[in-house]
């Protein structure tokens, strides 16, 4: 099991408590058969001066957005356009103050023959698995208070075929209305302007080197995954923001910081983050933060963990792939996504001598990200 947690947030002035609404699955969707499957989840965190709309889209490239609007601004979804992957089919009553988010268009399975744990341009062979191949369902909705809302989504099918019981990808996304710290490792800090994202690759063994439908989903208890003896997982990651982009300047950047304190995440002294230009200059912008650790067991033992390795050399988005075109990000940005402040990169999971996730083979993993729209002082509150 590979687990990674990430914080996604945006900055919006003072960090005051917010009331967080219940997750609204497919808001305003009526009379269409597509309303039966999850397309869009909407959570609103209402503050004193503004609202933060958390939009979680699971169709196409899973996309997770934090949208800041003026108070009482509503969300509008033109479902007949949205299900046809039309641009700008998701809008707001007023132009948002700020949008920040990320998409995962593809998973990548690669053969890490030199056991470096990283995927780069020279790595071969590899197989790109578009996220459009997966079908999802909402397993659980959490809304026990007005300060927190969460949703757990899991894959059910791959290429129209059901996945075996123990094979799945799951996302858990939560929006918060209060400052605090997550109760599960890596205990990321959160604010009323943030959402936390957990990704789990659970026993994800897919036989991708066959066209035989019957054995495509076969889960093998071997070290050989799709013909790769040293298989590792990676993913494409696209980050985007509505901030104006000046071509001479760096828009979205990656940085890592070191701390003396590992109390909240035992054994991990680093904190990785992605920031937009506004976040770096005015403390008002988009912000992603995570601990560079991927746990390999459900009890999140540091002794059974590996590294999420991000390629810090970001490039701008130059082409909208099919997966991205079918995503929530495209529905919100439209064709402007290509010219917006974007960054694309790859995140691979592994480190030297980690025995390729598990001593006994089947790799699984988790991704945990925290997304916020307020920049926090990182120390000593890590």
């Amino acid at each position, binding site marked *: 099991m590979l687990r990674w947690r990430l914080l996604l947030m945006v900055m919006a002035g003072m960090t005051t408590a917010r009331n967080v609404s219940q997750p609204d699955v497919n808001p305003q969707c009526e009379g269409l058969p597509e309303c039966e499957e999850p397309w869009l989840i909407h959570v609103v965190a209402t503050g004193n001066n503004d609202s933060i709309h958390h939009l979680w889209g699971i169709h196409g490239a899973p996309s997770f957005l934090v949208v800041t609007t003026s108070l009482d601004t509503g969300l509008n979804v033109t479902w007949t356009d949205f299900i046809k992957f039309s641009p700008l089919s998701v809008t707001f009553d007023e132009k948002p103050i700020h949008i920040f988010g990320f998409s995962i268009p593809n998973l990548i399975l690669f053969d890490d023959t030199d056991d470096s744990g990283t995927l780069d341009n020279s790595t071969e062979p590899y197989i790109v698995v578009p996220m459009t191949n997966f079908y999802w369902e909402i397993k659980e909705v959490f809304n026990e208070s007005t300060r927190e809302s969460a949703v757990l989504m899991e894959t059910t099918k791959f290429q129209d075929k059901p996945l075996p019981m123990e094979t799945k990808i799951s996302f858990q996304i939560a929006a918060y209305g209060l400052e605090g710290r997550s109760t599960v490792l890596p205990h990321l800090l959160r604010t009323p302007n943030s959402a936390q994202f957990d990704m789990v690759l659970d026993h994800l063994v897919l036989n991708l080197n066959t066209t035989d439908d019957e054995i495509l989903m076969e889960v093998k208890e071997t070290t050989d995954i799709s013909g790769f003896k040293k298989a590792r997982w990676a993913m494409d990651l696209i980050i985007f923001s509505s901030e104006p982009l000046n071509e001479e300047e760096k828009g979205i950047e990656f940085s890592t910081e070191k701390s003396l304190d590992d109390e909240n995440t035992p054994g*991990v002294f680093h904190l990785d983050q992605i920031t937009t230009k506004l976040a770096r200059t005015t403390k008002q912008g988009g912000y992603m933060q995570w601990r560079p650790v991927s746990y390999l067991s459900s009890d999140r033992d540091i*002794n059974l963990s590996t590294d999420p390795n991000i390629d810090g050399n970001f490039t701008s988005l130059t082409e909208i792939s099919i997966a991205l075109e079918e995503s929530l990000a495209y529905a919100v940005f439209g064709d402007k996504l290509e010219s917006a402040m974007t960054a694309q990169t790859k995140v691979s999971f592994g480190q030297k001598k980690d025995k390729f996730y598990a001593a006994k083979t089947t790799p699984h993993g988790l991704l945990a990200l925290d997304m916020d729209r307020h920049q926090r002082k990182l120390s000593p509150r890590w």
Partner: protein
Amino acid sequence: MEKSTGSHDSSLEEEREVTPSTDVNGVTEHHEDGPTEQEGEEVVLTGCGASACCNPQRGLYRFIGLLFMCFLSFGSYFCYDTPGALQDHIKEDMEVNTTQFASLYSLYSWPNVVLCFIGGFLIDRIFGIRWGTIIFSSLVTLGQFIYSLGGIVDQFWLMQFGRFVFGIGGESLAVAQNIYTVSWFKGKELNTVFGLLLSMARVGSTVNFLTMIPIYNWVNNFADGYRTLGISLMLAGITCVFSLACAIILGLLDKRRSEVLRLDSAKSGEKVRLSDVLSFPLSFWLLSIICVSYYVAIFPFIGLAKVFFMRKFDLDDTTSNAVSSIVYIISAFASPLMGFVVDRTGRNILWVFIAVIFSLGCHAMLTFTFINPFIPMSILGLAYSLLASALWPMVSLIIPEHQLGTAYGIMLAGLIVDKKGYLVLEIFYMVWLCAALASTALIAVVDSNGGGYLLKSPAQREKEIKASEGEENSSL
């Protein structure tokens, strides 16, 4: 592992040469340290037996015996720290957490909290020095074999059992080594030999940290996972077999020496009843607190340090092991030097205080800075050497408190790392060092109220002894 070797205050030499053990049957006996001569005809050696290397009456024979004595515990010291050198591999290959890993140290230490008292008794009453040494060395070898086997068959409980057996033999072997040393070198080069033996102990630990990863990587070419681990530990066990061979040879040399010089078998010396504990002075208990609290911050720390250096300072596993071994490397050279300094200057408590302060500073550097860990670890090596040289001469009994400190220190340390991380662990060590510092200050106060013997220089102590002798003569 620690034992009461290293330089000593010369004025305490007579007292210190007595290395008592507790007679568990409650009988107090007093023995002159070392073997006694038997009456009878002098043995005349001829031929090869009269040559320098075979004649116990010649210095070369004692030197050869010293050589085997030095390597008597080499295997034990080498293998003691194999968990520390292979910490990350043990946790990965055996799929255990830090708390479970730490049990590989605590299972060694816990039995030795009491075995130190019994070891001397077993040698004196049951086995004799020669067979006792061979038996304890065999236990060390057997324990290492069982521990390795646990790795090969992927059974962590077997590894733990092996460490327990290893521990039963380990410290008793150190007692036996002490007895041999006193027996062969009493009244001659005893201080120097003790210092040399302590240095050899540190060499064994150092070699472990520097070689186990290369051995593991080499074995990994033809094995995998826990088998690699088990085979690597089995190869480490060769040092125990070598030490066992030294024990057998030393036994033969000692037998010949006893026959030629017509000596009784060496004994452990003055015995102390367990009930005597009730009458120990306050200074003894304060010294025990210092022992416990100081060693909590040393051996458990070194046992867990490798992964700490890898995670916080981004060192690779080979470099991390090298940093861990620095304390021992420095101690190997610094212990005799520090012992010499303490011998010349006295004032043991002051040196203990300074050593604890510096140790506290080193842990603070490791906790609150990202300074290259070579620096604080090097200073810690010097401080540790100074403490051992200054502390042990103040202790006239075999004190197992350092084992107690290691035993529960490592258990708690493992739990703290898993739950709260390395920052909290370092603060844990610093708290104990503060306790050692407070106890040192208190013992200075107690001692000064009683005349201030431990704070005096050798010249002052000698003057005091002469003055008291003069008073005794005049009263007679």
